[in-house]
């Protein structure tokens, strides 16, 4: 039991909980709201009814995909800030392809999701290529590519890819065959959550059991030792960024095929950025990232009802999320200073 509390992930989650409830309470008191009412509203909004709980899982799924992508790059020592852009372009590709593939459901769903993964992978791969070919800093490259992706998507849906049947900033509704089947009737919870969880398991397998995962982790933790042990650092950087982007792009595609059923330029309220926090809170371990994504899903979803029922501005949730990130990043920073 003592060993359990010594696990870094457990302590990180403990810190996260203290920040959420401690700072959250203070913030609510400042807003003249009883923390009990505020948190009750938050959890009621996240768990109160079947459809509310389903929405919480929808948010968690939307975060889990890009968080897994970010974690993969992180494990290779690369900071992929560009999950947001990769996710948006993945959604765009899925939205466009989804209109054109009225095949049997399996074919059109697979084709649509694949289109999203390829688009996201391409976008992440650009940063990977610049890194491995020219040594360009991936943080700056992905950050700028986010802006390019957002503008590109806006331009595309209102310009060359504009459909006569669609509103501004959107593609038309997808063919029904490309819609992801729901797993809880009358909710937006689809099989995308199953795909995401399987992906987490797959990623854990890749990290722990495959040669590629081994080389990826070596490159991330000790690049010079890895290089001398035969690891091709350039190839790892290119692959890691490509797969990282592909996972984020797949996430964007599931938002299109499962939630909105069309691409909209407002597809993501910043999932790709919150995903960085989710990946870090989950200690870059796929299974724990799934747990962290669920926790963040509660926050994101409960915030709405907290605002509606308890008059707590939903921005407080953004403040809390930001503080969780700072607390954990600070802890990590202090720990790294101690060991060196």
């Amino acid at each position, binding site marked *: 039991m003592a060993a359990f509390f010594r696990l870094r992930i457990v302590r990180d989650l403990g810190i996260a909980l203290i920040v959420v409830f401690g700072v959250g309470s203070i913030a609510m008191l400042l807003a003249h709201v009883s923390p009990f009412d505020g948190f009750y509203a938050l959890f009621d909004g996240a768990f109160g009814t079947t459809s509310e709980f389903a929405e919480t899982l929808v948010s968690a799924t939307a975060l889990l995909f890009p968080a897994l992508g970010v974690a993969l790059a992180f494990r290779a020592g690369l900071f992929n800030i560009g999950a947001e852009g990769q996710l948006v372009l993945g959604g765009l590709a899925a939205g466009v392809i989804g209109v054109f593939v009225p095949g049997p459901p399996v074919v059109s769903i697979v084709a649509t999701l694949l289109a999203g993964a390829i688009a996201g992978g391409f976008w992440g791969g650009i940063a990977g290529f610049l890194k491995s070919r020219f040594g360009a800093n991936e943080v700056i490259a992905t950050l700028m590519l986010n802006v390019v992706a957002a503008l590109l998507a806006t331009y595309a849906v209102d310009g060359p890819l504009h459909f006569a049947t669609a509103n501004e900033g959107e593609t038309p509704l997808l063919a029904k065959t490309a819609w992801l089947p729901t797993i809880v009737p009358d909710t937006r919870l689809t099989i995308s959550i199953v795909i995401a969880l399987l992906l987490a398991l797959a990623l854990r397998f890749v990290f722990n059991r495959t040669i590629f995962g*081994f080389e990826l982790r*070596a490159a991330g933790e000790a690049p*010079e030792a890895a290089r*001398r042990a035969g*690891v091709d650092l350039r190839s790892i950087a290119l692959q890691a960024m490509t797969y990282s982007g592909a996972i984020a792009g797949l996430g964007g595609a599931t938002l299109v095929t499962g939630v909105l059923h069309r691409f909209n330029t407002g597809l993501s309220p910043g999932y790709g950025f919150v995903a960085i926090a989710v990946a870090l809170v989950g200690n870059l371990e796929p299974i724990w990232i799934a747990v962290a994504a669920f926790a963040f899903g509660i926050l994101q979803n409960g915030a709405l009802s907290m605002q509606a029922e308890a008059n707590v501005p939903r921005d407080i949730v953004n403040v809390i999320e930001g503080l969780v990130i700072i607390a954990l990043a600070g802890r990590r920073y202090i720990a790294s200073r101690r060991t060196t």
Partner: protein
Amino acid sequence: MSGAVLALRGIRKRFGTVQAVDGVDLDLNAGEIHALVGENGAGKSTLAAIAFGAVIPDEGTVETKAVVGLVHQHFQLVDRLNVWENVLLGREPKRGWRIDRAAARERVRALATEHGLDVDPDAIVETLPIGVQQRVELLRELERGPGVLLLDEPTAALAPTEIASFFRTITALAKAGTAVLIVTHKLQEVIDYSTRVTVMRSGRVVARYDTNATSTDEIARAMVGGELPPLAERAATTPAPRLSVRGLSAGNGGGGLVDGTFEVRAGEIVGVAGVEGNGQSALADALAGVTSYTGTIELDGVPLTATVTPAARLAAGVRVIPQDRRNEALVLGWSIAENVALGRHQTAPIRRGAILDRTAEAAATKEVIERFDVRPPDPQAVVDALSGGNQQKIVVGRALGAHPKLLVAYQPTRGIDVGAATLVQSRLIEARNAGVAVLLISFELDEIFALADRVLVMSGGRFVGAFDRANVDRGRVGALMAGGH
């Protein structure tokens, strides 16, 4: 407190389950050079850190009457800053609100001259060889005018000539009244330069001698608590051609290798003697495939020029024990098992298609732990927590476990205790007996003479001499290393 400048009384310190220091008394007197010896993990470095004040003991007292300086085993320098910036960090001379660069440079230059430490104040630290970085560390401590100087394995990285000049500096400091404590593994240096010796084992002081009344044998026995195992026997081998290097040039500037031509046959150890920074790194890197070069390298008559990558060299049967085990050989945050797999993960049995075979990894790890007596013998132990000697056993063990054709061993016993060093050296001899071609690059002449069948001497990036074991002449080798003829 008697006449001691630094007095430790009843010091105890525990880290987790390890009692690192277990009730130690130690006095340092002005003007003495006190050697502190013991195997890796005996508690020497911890004791030095306690004396310095960097580690708080659980029990016991530390009394000092003077400024205490500590030169760390792992350098604590800012790589991207230059020499004077490192030496004066936090104590820079100011002119108004700006750093007085001219005065700073002059102060460091004067300090270096005063202590006979040759270093360019404007050189960027990361471009300097390890031996010179050491001088920068020493200068930084000397700048504070310490009455007590603690040196944690100060000569581990130094060449013989550098060691001699280093001890000239230290002896002069002691004569001027500084109390010096040297933590070291090198018993010959203890005998040659110290005045008193304290031997530690498992956190306790087990012996204390006046240096002129003891011998290296007596100290070694006290350290290991018995007799040292003898070095492995050299078996008769029938050397066959293996590695052939012709006209090899690599690297550039001071540390480059120029036009090297030599052979290493299967079943022999060829020792490369030389002062650090005379082309050895470039030689090892060219063989490892981590740097580009001109000239030819042939293994069993096959040129290794098609693809120059570490992966291609590993596949061809070349294994290199790198100079810097912490950065170039190990992933410190990983377990012993994963580190054993590293570099052997691209071939069977550890590679099975796209899968890393954990069973094969466990088998390879067991072999390394058993053959090299790695402590703790726990495959899941994190490597960063192991002593330097045990880390090095893993590096050497995984290389030999891959059954290489050619083993390049760069300072394979650097900074490790006499027990671990003897074990590593024995395993190198056994590999030679089994038909491995071994290229031993070392700055320790004793090590070269103990192991090598043939000795090559490097100076200024060139091979300037070659000797057979039978007719090697220590004086000649030393003269050639120093750039003579």
